[in-house]
């Protein structure tokens, strides 16, 4: 395939540099968008220059973390990657990552590592022709934007049917909506969790897909790890969870500190210490391990890479504010929120919470989902809860109906102001505080914090 002309690359690059300097944002996808306007197949052309091809990762929950875990493993393996690490995961973001990696008209780097929005996955896969395609989970999320899960699963089915036989498809065996997608491909690699000591016997009500895609009967679960992920089978024998070749066989969780896991692979077991918390991150680690295995990376690189993982932007990030640490955790859909709630509810001491619910396009304009998340887990554990964001009021109402005393609830729509006040209260009360924003509230908070720089005195004085 012909490359993209130096002139077009140069124009798009200079626009990117200008937009980043102006600080007006958009720098993570704007140059790529412009490049795509100049050359509509730029992603296909540039990614074809990558000698090891590309890894495409998609999922409702955890794709940013999984990509970052894999990036850490690839770093240990000394494989230079082109990675859309800023999380801009539609065409513009991926084109920007490729553009940024060009030098003298040529893409520098060995392997593409692209985390891709679910709705864009089929198009990006067609253009990048990845060597590894990792599909990690499908949960209910932003139905106003993505549509129904079944429709998305059907489109992924078609996408996989069109892939060449040598493409390595990596699927979550524990997700009944995805596991069946690899049935016709003998080299499908499955990952999952076989240690069921953290599992629940029946799905929570927020679980999304609990029915056999063939006969419609409710799936029988032997164990539910989270949401609809677990060990399941159709009662009529149509379908059962495939045996994962890459499996977490032993999981020990240590609250917010992280987990110790043993992952079995066809090359032998890998022990690793994962420094990010929650069972959902165990899934991310096993998914990253499966992709690493598909890329023939070594056990040493995998365990070292996972152990060196840092939480990525907003996916459990700790801020030090006036000597007080605030754990930031993104919430965006019922299953993801439940896992965050499950992780913080394990804390033994009482804590405060700041929750920011926005209803902008990137959050999903429909806030119905909060009624499917199990905020009931917080009852009796939480000191004060501040509800913020454009839909702060409905968030507070949800908590009241989850059994939280109304006197513990504060409603203040302004994100920065309410955050400052909540942190100041928690400093005074010497109580730990967790911050749970939706996506655009997280961006808003991050921008506000970045503007101030590291000025602990400011935080302490509010």
């Amino acid at each position, binding site marked *: 395939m012909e490359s993209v002309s130096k002139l077009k690359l140069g124009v798009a690059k200079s626009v990117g540099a200008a937009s980043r300097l102006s600080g007006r944002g958009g720098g993570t996808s704007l140059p790529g968008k412009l490049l795509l306007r100049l050359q509509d197949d730029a992603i296909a052309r540039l990614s074809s220059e990558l000698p090891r091809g590309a890894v495409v990762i998609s999922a409702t929950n955890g794709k940013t973390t999984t990509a970052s875990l894999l990036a850490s493993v690839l770093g240990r393996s000394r494989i230079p990657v082109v990675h859309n690490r800023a999380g801009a995961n539609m065409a513009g973001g991926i084109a920007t990552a490729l553009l940024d990696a060009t030098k003298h008209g040529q893409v520098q780097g060995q392997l593409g590592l692209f985390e891709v929005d679910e709705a864009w996955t089929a198009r990006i896969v067609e253009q990048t022709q990845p060597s590894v395609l990792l599909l990690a989970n499908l949960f209910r999320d932003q139905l106003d934007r993505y549509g129904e*899960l079944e429709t998305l699963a059907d489109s992924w089915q078609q996408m996989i049917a069109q892939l060449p036989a040598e493409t390595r498809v990596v699927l979550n065996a524990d997700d009944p909506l995805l596991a069946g997608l690899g049935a016709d491909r003998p080299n499908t690699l499955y990952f999952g969790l076989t240690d069921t000591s953290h599992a629940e016997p029946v799905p929570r009500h927020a679980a999304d897909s609990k029915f056999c895609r063939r006969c419609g009967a409710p799936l029988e679960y032997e164990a539910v790890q989270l949401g609809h992920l677990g060990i399941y089978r159709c009662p009529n024998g149509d379908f059962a969870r495939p045996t994962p070749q890459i499996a977490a066989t032993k999981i020990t969780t240590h609250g917010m500190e992280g987990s110790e896991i043993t992952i079995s692979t066809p090359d032998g077991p890998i022990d690793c210490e994962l420094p990010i918390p929650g069972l959902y991150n165990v899934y991310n680690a096993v998914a990253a391990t499966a992709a690493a295995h598909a890329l023939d990376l070594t056990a040493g690189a995998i365990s070292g890479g996972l152990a060196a993982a840092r939480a990525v932007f907003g996916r459990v990030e700790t801020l030090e504010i006036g000597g007080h640490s605030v754990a930031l955790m993104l919430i965006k859909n019922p299953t993801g929120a439940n896992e965050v709630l499950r992780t913080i509810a394990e804390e033994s001491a009482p804590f405060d919470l700041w929750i920011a619910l926005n209803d902008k396009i990137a959050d999903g304009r429909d806030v119905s989902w909060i009624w499917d998340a199990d905020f009931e887990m917080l009852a009796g554990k939480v000191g004060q809860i501040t509800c913020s964001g454009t839909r702060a009021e409905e968030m507070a109402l949800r908590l009241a109906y989850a059994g939280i005393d109304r006197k513990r609830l504060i409603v203040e729509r302004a994100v920065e102001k309410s955050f400052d006040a909540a942190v100041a209260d928690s400093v005074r009360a010497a109580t730990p505080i967790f911050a749970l924003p939706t996506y655009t509230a997280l961006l808003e908070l991050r921008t506000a914090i970045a503007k101030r720089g590291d000025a602990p005195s400011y935080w302490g004085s509010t």
Partner: protein
Amino acid sequence: MNDSPTLRICALYPSRMNIYADRGNMLLLQHRCEARGIGFELTASEAGEHVDPDAHDLFYIGGGQDSDQIQIAGDMLETKQAALAEAAEGGKVILAVCGGYQLLGEYYELADQKVEGLGIVDLRTVREPGERLIGNVMIEFEVDGSPRVLAGFENHGGRTYLESGCPPLGRVLKGHGNNGKDGFEGVHVNNVFGTYLHGPLLPKNAWFADHLTRLALGGDIELEPLDDDLEDLAHESAIRAAGGGSGLMRLTQR
């Protein structure tokens, strides 16, 4: 009405028809009953289970994916249609939301098939080419002579058309409503309510939860007022999200 009434709810296919967190509606009804010392009983009726129209005061059916609706429609006709028709006729409250609303009518016509509905109200739903109708929505209708507002979120591919003489639930103030064309939203016949305001619409409209509770308990019951500060704020917030002004907020206050 005796001294301690009980609100007996029958939820239809709750394990399937729950796509937009319909559980929020049940939570609201339950907590408000408990706060008032009213008994609360929630029964689920899944596939293959028959329904006793006299054993419940309120029947609820929520939203599902197209595939879910197709799955349940046949069973619903077989095991529940007669009972629900009798319940509707007898003045029981039926609240049907989103996909459940579509199933109240004669049929739901999809690209490659026609799903037969309960036929309790005189309406048809058709999947027409074009975008899904998605967004915040706000409708207005009269309750006991006063105008009230219902605010929520809609997300539907089907367009619903009421036969002449079949009354809508309300008039669209903001959003799409039944079909994005005629300015009507939902259906309201006797005590049967159908609406595209999906999922947890009662948390956004606590007044409507109380209205349904009153109707379900026989209509002449006085409900004790509750501390509804947060409920009022959430209602105003839903109105604001739909683009409603402060005048509309005043309109909805008690």
